[in-house]
């Protein structure tokens, strides 16, 4: 954490300010929720099923508009959906990862090397030519992650990216994101239910009843969660 002290005065990379949101008029999912993630931090977001984690991420990406309050992301962001089936839009793996690179207007060789690099990072280099429908659930999830990291964006929003992965790949992926955050000085917000992943993040946040009820060192949050179970 010491290497982040210098960035404390910078504006947060991810900011949620007093946000309320309801899908239906009667049931509020988020209630005056506030959260700030400083640049260069790997932050994990915890919470029970239906506590509004995915909703919060959708608000951050702009897919939803808050009914009250404000959200902001500093810089470009990549987003990994909770269900990878919802986000793979091209017919084959390589083309799908390349989908997000259009805006950067890179020459083809750069695109191809970026894509291979991202696929190699999630151990899928050998499947670049495979059609999406012929992938397993975990492989789809990796393609989705590759699509986000290929874009070289400054902020990563990951909604349960390890939900469909086996334990080894799960740890591998957390380590990968940890390294990316360190090396490229990214900011990552990672939603999870798996407590083992907490060891790799800088800070963890617990969402309950529509707002952040706890935040702090992963170890302390882990103790609290373990005690409440």
């Amino acid at each position: 954490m010491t290497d982040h002290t210098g960035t404390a005065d910078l504006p947060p990379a991810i900011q949620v300010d007093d946000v309320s949101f309801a899908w239906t008029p009667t049931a509020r999912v988020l209630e005056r929720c506030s959260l700030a993630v400083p640049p260069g931090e790997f932050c994990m977001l915890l919470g029970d099923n239906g506590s509004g984690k995915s909703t919060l991420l959708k608000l951050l990406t702009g897919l939803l508009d808050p009914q009250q309050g404000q959200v902001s992301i500093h810089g470009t962001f990549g987003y990994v959906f909770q269900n990878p089936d919802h986000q793979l839009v091209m017919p084959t793996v390589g083309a799908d990862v390349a989908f997000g690179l259009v805006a950067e207007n890179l020459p083809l060789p750069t695109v191809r090397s970026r894509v291979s690099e991202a696929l190699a990072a999630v151990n899928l280099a050998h499947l670049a030519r495979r059609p999406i429908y012929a992938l397993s659930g975990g492989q789809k999830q990796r393609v989705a992650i590759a699509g986000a990291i290929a874009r070289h964006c400054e902020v990563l929003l990951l909604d349960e990216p390890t939900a469909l992965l086996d334990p080894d790949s799960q740890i591998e992926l957390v380590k990968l994101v940890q390294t990316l955050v360190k090396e490229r000085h990214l900011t990552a917000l990672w939603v999870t239910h798996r407590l083992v992943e907490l060891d790799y993040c800088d800070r963890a946040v617990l969402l309950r009843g529509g707002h952040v009820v706890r935040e702090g060192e992963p170890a302390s949050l882990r103790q609290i969660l373990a005690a409440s179970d």
Partner: protein
Amino acid sequence: MDLLKTLPIGLYLEEPVTWLHRLDPRVKLFWLFSILVSPILANASWRFFLVGLLMALTITALIPLRVWRQQMGWLLFLCTMMLVLTALLPDGLAIAYQAPVPSPTAIQSIEPFPDQFPPTAFAVPPATGYQYVVLDAWRLTVTQRSLELGIRLSTLLFTLIYGTNLFLLTTASEEVTVAIEVLMRPLRSLNVPVTEIALTVTLALRFIPLVLEETQNLIRSVQTRAINWKKLGFRGSAQVWLAITERLLKNLLLRAEQTAAAMAVRGFTTPDTHRVKWSELRLRTADFLALVALVGFWYARVVWGGEGV
């Protein structure tokens, strides 16, 4: 997913990479187009040549047996059925067939023999072996015309389906659309939104498996509910199927919405500028050879393959 895996045509073969995979998709598109168009007004030998050509391509590309056994199996069955049925069914000429020249025995029975015909009047040129009725056994009649029609239909069916299939087998979906886009590029000057069309087609190609998957899921959900169709009667069953169709449409619309959302957050630019760069389009030596061969193909078609040649 079973529906997809058993779907015998239109699937991309990812492994092994054959020489057909390595050809430039534009060249392959030209070849496909030629193979689809050249049977028009062609003679039977040309049609058989096309069938042989497609077989030869499959074999020289070393496409694994497991892939084409499955596809070839039902396609050959279909085409053979087509040939047999069309050949056997009445050929549409409502004529009672008869030999072209009165046979000597038939002439003898004419009494009295007309004087005005000298015996040489029936000295026709020697018969050529041509017979309009090719086979006439029991009540089955195969005529020149029905045979010709059968050959036409069955080879055309084979060439159309198998040609397209071989193309899709060795060309990834986005390569297909990139090739179409590049070839349609001249239309841009006519304000045709070429990139948008190509992108739409690509997205649709990703969507087809999703449709199949959704359908499969719904069918499964019906199967597991053990519905007593007999008890439901016709009206009841129709209602169930209507409900399922409605559900399917709803799910598909939801999927489309999710895809749109995903595109938005994944850095979609605008429809007419979002050109996903991924496939390499480069003409190599093999592509030039294939183009030269295509010229030869059309030369042969014009010189030997035409009807009435």
